[in-house]
């Protein structure tokens, strides 16, 4: 029985891990895009502004869009976002539904990208301007300054908040169940019908072990980056 339950749960957990892995794959770079967007200073109508602090000077569409997106995504429950992304297109625009799994990945990636973007932004803004200026006076391009000077320092600073979010993501994958995506909690729950409650409790062990492994991984990465300070 134990082996049978373990196998069923492993199968469920594999689905959870797929959501986890794909979400990370998409949200880590997407977060960077949103982060740059929300730091964008592009003000296309600035040339119309006649005074400081005019509307035209402050009209920064990319920044507004990205900040608005982050506000909405962080301000509403992920569960609701899953439902909206899965059912919304059909209900509102008569579009075909996305496959459940795809909808899950879209919702999770968007959600986590927004959280990551804020972590990145905090990290980037915490780098002293002197680092940029040192790069500039040495004739580096903006891209070189970002990749060769700033990036690793940012990575080091965001390790702790990123590992927090990533561990939260492992647990959040259970929300996919709300739009009927099979994952480990569901797998555990399905044993209740057969009169077994312990498999549901047992799912906790899977999360614990996996998060334990992640914690070790992050500790290693942090150690790797501990060769410098700054």
């Amino acid at each position, binding site marked *: 029985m134990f082996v049978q339950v373990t196998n069923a749960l492993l199968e469920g957990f594999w689905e959870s891990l797929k959501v986890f892995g794909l979400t990370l794959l998409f949200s880590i770079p997407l977060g960077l895009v949103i982060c740059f967007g929300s730091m964008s200073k592009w003000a296309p109508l600035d040339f119309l502004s006649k005074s400081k602090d005019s509307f035209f000077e402050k009209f920064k569409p990319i920044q507004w869009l990205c900040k608005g997106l982050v506000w909405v995504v962080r301000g509403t429950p992920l569960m609701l976002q899953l439902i909206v992304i899965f059912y919304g297109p059909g209900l509102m625009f008569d579009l075909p539904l996305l496959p459940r799994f795809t909808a899950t990945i879209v919702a999770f990636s968007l959600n986590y990208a927004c959280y990551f973007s804020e972590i990145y932004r905090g990290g980037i803004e915490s780098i002293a301007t002197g680092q940029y200026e040192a790069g500039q*006076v*040495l*004739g580096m391009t903006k891209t070189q300054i970002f990749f060769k000077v700033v990036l690793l*320092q940012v990575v*080091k600073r965001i390790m702790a908040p990123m590992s927090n979010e990533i561990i939260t993501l492992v647990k959040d994958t259970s929300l996919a169940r709300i739009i009927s995506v099979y994952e480990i909690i569901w797998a555990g729950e399905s044993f209740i019908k057969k009169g077994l409650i312990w498999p549901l409790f047992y799912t906790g062990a899977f999360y614990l072990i996996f998060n334990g492994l992640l914690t070790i991984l992050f500790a290693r990465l942090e150690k790797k980056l501990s060769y*410098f*300070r700054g």
Partner: protein
Amino acid sequence: MAVLEVKNIRKSFGKTNVLKGVSFSLEKGQVLAIIGSSGSGKTTLLRCLNFLETPDVGEIWVDGKLLRSGSEKLSEQQVRENRLHFGLVFQNFNLFPQYNVLKNVMLAPQLLKKGTAKELEERAKQLLDQVGLSEKLDSYPYQLSGGQQQRVAIARALALSPQVLCFDEPTSALDPELTGEVLRVIRGLKNADSTMTVVTHEMEFARSVADVVMYMADGVIEEIGTPEQVFGNPQSEKTKAFLRGAHEKF
């Protein structure tokens, strides 16, 4: 002919007029010491030279080449090319913490493809030797004292062979016992015929190293001349008052 010629630089931040028409020139191999009280615009002047600020008005010439003309817009590429005529050593070093000493010095020349890896390493080692840090090639900035960090920063700036090397209060962030080693390095550069502009509060140093001393007050050059003139026989009342104050302080 002058290496550096600065003509009528003006710069304001909003309503604050920081530089109100600054002009001077510097011959090759000369050292200019800029002194002046806090807020007089010394840093802003150096930042204009290094293209970290855009002046509102004024011209910057190096070796007879016009690098900056007022607030005329330059392409990023052009700014990068032009600013390489200058080097800047910051008050608080701004070394790159994730690279060791050697790499700090080599990074920019490498990115700018100034030579083969081997050549650049040789050159970096030679510069670090010059500032007395050949023992520290593999150290990271946090493992160094302030004085050592500042010497790395000097080597880093020298690695791009700027025509004019600027220092913004290079010893202000250092404990008093560490200023000597940095000032010695700068003195050594003078002997090697580098053209330099040093903002400093170290009057003794300015007097002994500079060929030209410039006293700035409220965004203008209040007085400029040889150290003997400015320190020994200042003409302006403001200069006299400043020097009296500086004398009492140090």
